[in-house]
């Protein structure tokens, strides 16, 4: 099996094999906190940090662990690292902790973390695992933020509401009112809105992929045509 280049790893994490849109992993936190942009962004960043740390650690010890005990070892590592992150956020970013509350310990249940440890980090070098963690985490964070933005806009007519909970008082001005005097659309904020929103985003991604492919095919065909004509002219 040919090793993937770092660029390929990045591309897969962000787009081709995106945790939320393609692997459809980590749905529990994804659907629970994406009711507004800031919560989505916050949990996305926390997951990103977790993925980078767990991937790197798992990769560093990959030669030490035996196949028959790898899953319990991964689970213990992930649980310890997440707990350490939670305590640290609680101590040093108390406001963020208040905003994200119980969702940080929930990262343990995000199967994409264990999934990446098992599928990638246990078989690849530290640098590559770190890049994979970064790319996968970033892809997940972007998906969460997008879904959050979409639900907040449809549900409440605003964007970046309560940014001050995460970035301090100065960020209060970030709040955008997209639709003035908006009455609110309840469904978008409630859990069904999360499923519908995620479905729409996945559909959009597939549509873009399809367009790109068609574009690519057309370009190939055109190229084949011109080379064909050139060779005919040459004869």
């Amino acid at each position, binding site marked *: 099996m040919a090793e993937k280049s770092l660029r390929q790893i990045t591309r897969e994490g962000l787009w081709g094999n995106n945790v939320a849109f393609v692997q459809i992993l980590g749905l529990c936190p994804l659907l629970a906190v994406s009711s507004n942009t800031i919560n989505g962004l916050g949990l996305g960043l926390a997951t990103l940090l977790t993925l980078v740390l767990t991937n790197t650690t798992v990769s560093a010890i990959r030669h030490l662990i*035996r196949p028959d005990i790898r899953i319990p070892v991964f689970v213990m*590592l992930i649980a*310890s690292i997440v707990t350490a992150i939670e305590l640290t956020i609680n101590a040093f970013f108390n406001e963020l902790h208040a905003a994200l509350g119980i969702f940080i310990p929930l990262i343990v249940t995000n199967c994409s973390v264990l999934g990446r440890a098992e599928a990638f980090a246990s078989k690849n070098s530290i640098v590559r695992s770190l890049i994979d963690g970064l790319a996968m985490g970033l892809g997940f964070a972007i998906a969460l933020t997008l879904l959050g933005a979409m639900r907040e806009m449809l*549900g409440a007519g605003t964007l970046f509401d309560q940014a001050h909970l995460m970035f301090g008082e100065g960020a209060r001005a970030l709040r955008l009112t997209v639709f003035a005097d908006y009455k*609110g659309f309840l469904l978008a904020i409630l859990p069904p809105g999360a499923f519908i929103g995620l479905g729409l985003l996945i559909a959009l991604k597939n549509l873009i992929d399809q367009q790109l492919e068609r574009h690519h095919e057309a370009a190939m065909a055109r190229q084949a045509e011109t080379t064909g004509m050139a060779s005919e002219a040459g004869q």
Partner: protein
Amino acid sequence: MPLKKMLLSAALLGLFATLGTALVAYTYEYTHERIAQNERDALLRSLHAIIPSSRHDNDPVADSIEISDATWLGSNKPQQVYRARQQGKPVALALTAVAPDGYSDDIKLLIGINYDGTLAGVRVTAHAETPGLGDKIDEARSDWIHGFADRSLSNTTAKQWQVKKDGGVFDQFTGATVTPRAIVKAVRKALEYYQQHRDELFEAGEPPVQETGQETGHG
């Protein structure tokens, strides 16, 4: 041979369990004081927001007692009463109470009551209401909770102590009536409890012990 392999696996598993525990223990050791401090700060901030420190000269956190009354305070767990005094005279108190009938889980409240029975203010200290709907009870998210200030059992009748939908004076939220209704009820009950027990609430407990280090950093 299999025995040796098993033992090795067990030893490795044990090693990683120890390492994981060590990491958590170390982080806890390093952060727990700060976390406790954060919680104290948050409590003090809420306390000061509803009973400004200019109104009292004691330390309400040091001058606190525990009470327990499931019928009126919404929980059978002990609740805190923080008492504010000016030159030994009672000014106001803030008590914790629980609204047990919110949309999801208990809503924890800090209710400030002036000596004369009017509300100094109310704050939600912990809740799990629906983000974007019921969470407007949080002061950081909307100023709904400010609507309680200056209300009392005498200037607001029992019928008015309800959300507007039920014929009262308190706003509900679009799509979330259960949450405000639960809080209005919990605050009213706390006021009734206060009315019946005012003197014991201020007199109970040991005379305040002056604690050092607690009062620094604010005032």
